[in-house]
């Protein structure tokens, strides 16, 4: 998805569109495969823009997001994914945790 674009007012986040991933499994895999430096760069770029992004996205019903808005939404979901790595663990994975790749995620609704 990295060649797709974000809404114009969020073009400053374009360098991080590789984090615009559709599923929990993809976002979790990306977090686990990234170095802490890579995670921190993404986190530091998204955190100051997250409130504005959510406010911008309020204009669309969740079910009918335009493609560029949906990409922005997916970036905010990746911010939620990496938040524990930065704010709690200081490393990509859970400290002394069960292997997250053994958790099979499934969403409904």
């Amino acid at each position, binding site marked *: 998805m990295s060649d797709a674009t974000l809404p114009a007012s969020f073009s400053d986040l374009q360098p991080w569109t590789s984090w615009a991933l559709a599923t929990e499994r993809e976002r979790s895999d990306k977090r686990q495969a990234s170095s802490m430096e890579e995670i921190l760069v993404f986190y530091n770029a998204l955190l100051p823009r997250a409130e504005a992004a959510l406010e911008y996205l309020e204009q669309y019903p*969740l079910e009918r997001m335009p493609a560029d808005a949906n990409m922005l*939404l997916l970036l905010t979901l990746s911010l939620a994914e990496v938040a524990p790595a930065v704010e*709690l663990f200081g490393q990509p994975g859970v400290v002394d945790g*069960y292997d997250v790749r053994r958790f099979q*995620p499934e969403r*409904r609704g």
Partner: protein
Amino acid sequence: MDGSSSNDTTWHSKHPHLGTGPLPTNVFTCENQFQLEREHIFKKLWLNVGRVEQIPEPGNYFVQDIAMCQTSILVVRGKDGEVRAFHNMCSHRGNKVAWDKHGSCKAFTCKFHGWTYGLDGTLRSVPDEKNFFDLDTSKLGLTLVACDVWEGFIFINVDPQPAEDLTSFLGEFGTRLHGYPFADISTSSASWTTEVNANWKVVKDAFLETYHVAFLHGRSLPDSFTSQSNPHNQILDLRLYPYHGTISLYGNADVKPSPVGSIAFRHGASLIRQNFDPNAPPPGVNPGRHEDWTLDLNTVFPSFFIDVSEGSYFTHNFWPVAVDRTIWHSTQYFPKAQTASQRFTQEYGHVLFRDIILEDGRTLEETHSMLASGAKKEFYLQDEEILVRHSHHVIQQMIERATGTHAHV
């Protein structure tokens, strides 16, 4: 039932029949014990297999394999709207009639020889039927399994003649939770499934007490469930029933959320207590009406949990596979998000919850891997671990009543 709201004496002193002695550890590793649990508990009791929202329309179905009951259960919504359960087995020569984990259909056609069953389980057609001998198709429907629904939760019982119905099995515990908006909150869910190399009771017991929270979850939940006034996350309330149990958990309303947590909390409640009214849930939730309440842990015997907070709840189902293997299935339920902010807040709570239970998960296998050594014959439970003691008590009591003998191993 014994409701308790003050903590001026021990929980155990209010339930003296449970004793205070150590717990034998061979119950986690003994093959004979496991077989007794299979025959006298899992094959006799009502087991939760899912929720009605998984099969909203006639023809919707899902399959729950239950190794402990040596069967696969097919749960279907019929044309009449009724939810029914069947052994997932063709009457001809035994093939599973549904191979997919879930789906939607007008009828079930066995992939082996094409016998076809209606959504109500009746046998509709048999290819080349005239070549059979004295076939009475009216008696050859799918084998029904007792099935009932409580608050949208679907339960089955593989006993052909259950000793009691679901309402009676849930008893006062079931009526107490009435009024919690399960249907409103269950419009969206996110779950994980994993197979853990540990006995099902090792897994279950880890989710029955909060003594571990301050230490094991010291990184993931700093000051969320603990504070200077409650440094060990002691429970606020305990309700014990013949099978089931409830504890009310303390939450620190003064917790300082993380930067991303702060954004999430501005748009809704999350796993960590914030911005909600402990008196808002119906009276059966936070039954002691504690101001510093955050959630109730409800354990439905033998291996189902419904942990409710304000605005969201989560469940665990622990399915024994072998004496040293358990399928662990956890689901978080949310009202269906309408806006990006709600979706973000739910994702934050979801990821946080996942990472917390990943901390729990590691202890399960590290513990079980040592049990076979026999180095420790007994485990020691403190007052706050009373639901662990209660669970083991009910298990042994059921086995002893069924076999007429004292203990097992």
